[in-house]
């Protein structure tokens, strides 16, 4: 049921997107192509950089990973497993190959599982977390931002702005335990760290922790964007022709003011994926971040490489998608 709904949504959006693209002008199409090319270039750059991670850090990578006084046969084994006994171009070739055959390489040094299979296993948890954080952040941000903009330069505005400012200033790894203390210890209504991680209940606190920073950021953006829009000529026109305040705000101002906010929200989705590293640690949740930290703790270089690559790749893809949708839907974009 949920699956068919998702499929329908995907199909509907794809059709809409293709429809939008087909009805574009050649200039817009050229812009989109250029945007696509630059995204691909970014992805290639990310791949090269991730590959070079091991080599740009001074010192022998194997010594770095295992420590200098590791047993020689361990070192040899790791060296072979990481292809470090091969010349650099061969290493790079194998790395690129491992991206395209979808394995992202085998975990070193035991070679038992592919990195991709481990990533795939934990990916849904992280995506669910990021999405629910977005669902916490965006509505609240709009509420705060619009409220503050409508009452600009009053006490309400000051209060809402202060809340937003606090939101960008609180370190999330402090907020998380505090939330746990409130809703797990004092008022035990929500599950604690490591409990119910697959259920919706278990998502509540982590998404608040992850979403707060973004919420505050978007609220500030909404406020300034809304204030700017409300001072535009067409708003004055709308007011002058006698439209009621709510109609001016919701029909005329909001649509224009929200466009940049939604765009930034989309682009910050990738940042949420990265921020999940800390959140997952605080709440002992499985996910990409936990996998990354495991990889770091076990000195499993390929896992670090794979997680970084996957998160950065998704980040680029989401950014591209947002840009394309933006260009395809907003006739004012002339590039």
């Amino acid at each position, binding site marked *: 049921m949920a699956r068919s709904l998702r499929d329908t949504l995907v199909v509907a959006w794809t059709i809409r997107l293709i429809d939008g693209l087909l009805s574009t002008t050649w200039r817009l199409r050229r812009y989109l192509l250029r945007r696509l090319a630059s995204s691909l270039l970014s992805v290639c750059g990310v791949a090269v950089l991730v590959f070079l991670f091991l080599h740009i850090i001074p010192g022998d990578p194997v010594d770095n990973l295992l420590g200098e006084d590791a047993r020689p046969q361990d070192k040899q084994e790791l060296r072979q497993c990481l292809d470090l006994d091969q010349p650099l171009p061969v290493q790079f070739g194998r790395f690129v190959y491992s991206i395209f055959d979808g394995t992202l390489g085998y975990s070193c040094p035991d070679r038992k599982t592919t990195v991709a299979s481990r990533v795939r296993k934990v990916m849904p948890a992280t995506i669910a977390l990021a999405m629910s954080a977005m669902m916490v952040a965006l509505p609240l941000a709009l509420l705060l931002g619009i409220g503050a903009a409508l009452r600009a330069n009053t006490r309400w505005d000051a209060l809402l702005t202060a809340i937003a400012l606090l939101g960008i200033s609180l370190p999330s790894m402090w907020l998380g335990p505090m939330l746990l203390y409130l809703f797990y210890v004092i008022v035990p209504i929500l599950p604690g760290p490591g409990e119910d991680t697959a259920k919706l209940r278990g998502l509540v606190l982590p998404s608040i922790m992850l979403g707060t920073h973004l919420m505050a950021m978007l609220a500030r953006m909404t406020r300034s964007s809304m204030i700017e829009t409300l001072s535009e000529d067409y708003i004055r026109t709308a007011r002058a022709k006698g439209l009621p305040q709510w109609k001016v705000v919701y029909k005329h101002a909001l649509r224009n003011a929200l466009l940049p906010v939604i765009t930034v929200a989309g682009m910050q989705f990738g940042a949420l994926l990265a921020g999940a590293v800390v959140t997952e640690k605080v709440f002992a949740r499985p996910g990409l971040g936990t996998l990354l930290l495991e990889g*770091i703790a076990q000195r499993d270089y390929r896992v670090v490489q794979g997680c970084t690559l996957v998160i950065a790749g998704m980040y680029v893809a989401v950014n591209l998608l947002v840009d394309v949708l933006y260009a395809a839907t907003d006739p004012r974009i002339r590039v």
Partner: protein
Amino acid sequence: MKSASSTPRPHHRLRVPHLGLGAWIGAALCLLFILVALVGPLLLKRAPTAQDLDHLLEGPSRTHLLGTDENGCDLLTQICYGARLLSGLAAAVVVLCLVVGVLVGTLAGYLGGWLDEVTMRIIDILLAFPGILLNIAVAALVPRAGLGVLIFALAVNGWVGYARVARAQTLRVREMEYVVAARALGVGPLRLVTRHILPNILSPILIQATFGAAGVVLVEASLSFLGLGPPIPYTWGALLLQGTNYFWRARHLLVVPGVAIALLVLGCNLLGDGLRDYLDPRGGRRG
């Protein structure tokens, strides 16, 4: 009689230079931090790692104003020494990033051509990583974590923000008459950039630096929290990690560093907001 500030003024006239209340609070918080960092360690008699084994994991008391941790180290002392460390770290990262970023950004913006193209591609690639991820990856791969590593990890992508601001601003002023005039007088590119362009693009860069400092504090806290920071037990991030580990037994251990970090970041943000409102009122909106 109306006071001068409430009379409506035409927009184009020079405003009376005043920072808002927020900016003053922000400046006060930043100043307080610097004061704690500079003077704090001098006033305290204990070393940050000195152990008081009679008082383990104790809340605030007269001998230990902010309480002690599981080794009996005084939290106030640790916070002060941590502040000293953090101020040095933040200054180092901000200065490094600022110098590199501004140099790259102004040169790319002024000279244009392939240099600009290459710079922008590099920036694109660095921006393709969600910031903290790159910091984590760099910090994780280095064998022995230390302050230098932390600075490097933070600077790897930290300069990008400054470079982008500097480039955009350089593009803005490059064709302005005074620059064209200076060029017509035969001023060389280096002198033109340093003497004519740089002073005129400095304010957005300063604003960027204020927000950048806040970012450094938060990222340091994250990295240390993930166990990737320098092996110093009293960086603010390490204190936060320790606080999380002992949270169920001693809440002050988490509350104190958390509040300290929040106040400092709040101060930087308030100051940055205030400076932006004052220096370029119609500057780009950012979160």
